[in-house]
């Protein structure tokens, strides 16, 4: 069974805050849910499917469904694979809608790691209790930053990728962020700025890392009949793929990500190829994340990512593959340390023609959003969606 054409994204909302000192996480969930419903022209009582992750306060979806006053739910899903979960939720919602399990799905993400002064990337942290790999990784100071740096170092070793090439990814993101009034980092940076910024975890510099921000976002996904009755431009879900990559029993290969599997699944379902994609939202927790995913999704050959991203190839209006035109996680927003939601939202903006005029891809009808959740260098969840303006 295919979800191609069975569901549409009709509401998308990114919270404008980047530091939520005066709001609780639950409040932020409510604000993004309200924002997405307003965008769609619907109300909370229209929602019969609810999607969130373990990052939502409470037991799965229960406490948030209560807080938000969602009384009509007949389907819920709290799949959590980290920051890519919200890309995955688009696929799961389309599946549920196509099977008649729900008609109007709400997906929410919110968090406030910045207000809580969380050492997001540089302090070791576990995902829970009784995690079997923890005794073999936490004592060694496994952090988000070094779990990505390990991949970057190996990629450089095998393929000759350089820090300057990685820096071009940040440069491109900054060119886009300058037009986003809500972006945390609006200053356009150069390759030299990136490689001269302090080293965090070799070979990743501070400017190779995404921002830490509060806020969140929400999506509304529905079936074709309802989507066509609403006033928003039609953004159709054409394909979805997901995968996990792990340590492979100790025989791990850090030169690729799970996008190697999620990407082809999404392209097959959508019936298109990487060359057809006009805009791509690519998960950008770090510059290396972008580079490896672009290779694995098939935008270039494995090992050629460094050459592909260099010289502005990701800058809208300049390069061949405009990416993260909101400034991405690298410059704009990475709410709750989870970048999947904003990846989908900017893809929706591009397909609606509602991106900032300076970064809008002319005639954008086919876009991709992709996420990597968890840790690139240990175990992660990959999710790809392909969306079309109808």
């Amino acid at each position, binding site marked *: 069974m295919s979800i191609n054409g069975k569901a549409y994204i009709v509401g998308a909302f990114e919270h404008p805050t980047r530091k939520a000192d005066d709001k609780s996480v639950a409040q932020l969930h409510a604000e993004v849910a309200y924002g997405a419903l307003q965008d769609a022209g619907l109300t909370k009582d229209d929602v019969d499917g609810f999607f969130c992750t373990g990052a939502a306060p409470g037991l799965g979806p229960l406490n948030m469904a209560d807080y938000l006053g969602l009384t009509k739910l007949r389907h819920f899903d709290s799949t959590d694979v980290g920051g890519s979960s919200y890309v995955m939720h688009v696929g799961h919602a389309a599946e549920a809608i196509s099977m008649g399990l729900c008609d109007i799905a709400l997906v929410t993400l919110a968090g406030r790691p910045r207000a809580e002064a969380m050492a997001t990337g540089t302090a070791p942290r576990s995902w829970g209790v009784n995690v079997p790999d923890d005794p*073999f990784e936490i004592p*060694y100071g496994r952090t988000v930053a070094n779990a990505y740096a390990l991949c970057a170092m190996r990629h450089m070793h095998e393929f000759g990728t350089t820090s300057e090439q990685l820096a071009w990814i940040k440069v491109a993101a900054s060119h886009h962020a300058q037009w986003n009034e809500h972006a945390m980092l609006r200053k356009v940076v150069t390759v030299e700025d990136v490689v001269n910024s302090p080293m965090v*975890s070799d070979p990743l510099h501070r400017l190779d890392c995404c921002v830490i921000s509060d806020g969140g976002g929400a999506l509304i996904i529905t079936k074709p009949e309802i989507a066509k009755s609403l006033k928003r431009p039609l953004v159709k879900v054409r394909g979805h793929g997901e995968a996990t990559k792990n340590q492979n029993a100790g025989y791990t290969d850090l030169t690729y990500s799970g996008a190697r599997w999620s990407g082809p699944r999404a392209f097959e379902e959508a019936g298109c190829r990487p060359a057809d994609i006009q805009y791509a939202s690519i998960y950008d927790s770090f510059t290396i994340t972008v580079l490896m995913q672009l290779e694995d999704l098939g935008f270039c050959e494995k090992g050629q990512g460094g050459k592909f991203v260099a010289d502005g190839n990701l800058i809208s209006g300049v390069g061949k593959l405009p990416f993260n035109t909101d400034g991405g996680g690298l410059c704009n927003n990475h709410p709750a340390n989870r970048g999947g939601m904003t990846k989908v939202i900017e893809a929706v903006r591009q397909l609606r023609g509602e991106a900032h005029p300076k970064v809008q891809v002319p005639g954008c009808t086919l876009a991709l959003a992709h996420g990597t959740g968890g840790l690139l260098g240990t175990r992660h969840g990959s999710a790809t969606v392909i969306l079309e303006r109808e």
Partner: protein
Amino acid sequence: MATPASNRALPAIAVDPTNKPYFDAAREGRLLIGLCKDTGKHFWYPRGCSPFTLSNNVELVEAKGTGTVYTYTVMRTKEPYCVAYVELDEGVRIFTNIVDCDLDEVRIGQKVKVVFKPTQGDSPPATMFTPA
């Protein structure tokens, strides 16, 4: 620029009934790795099932304790430390630290040998590596 390995405090290790034999051996200075007796293949990290067949026909066997650096990174925190995957001579790649050396001199492909470093309290030692 030399970056001497710091003697940062290591957190206590969460020992459970399944991984206890591994950590008991570590206290004796022996490095064990998993062996799937269905397939004859080694695996990492130690666990109560075979990641190849899912059966519990597994045991811990002693490794030589030598290998090469598969990849590494130096965390440039106040107390810098080197995180790495070391590929043991037996083939498995294990998440670890490189210690007792100039961290700026660590390289992919470098030969290393196991060393056990104390953690907090009565917790078993951590399995780390140093240039061979």
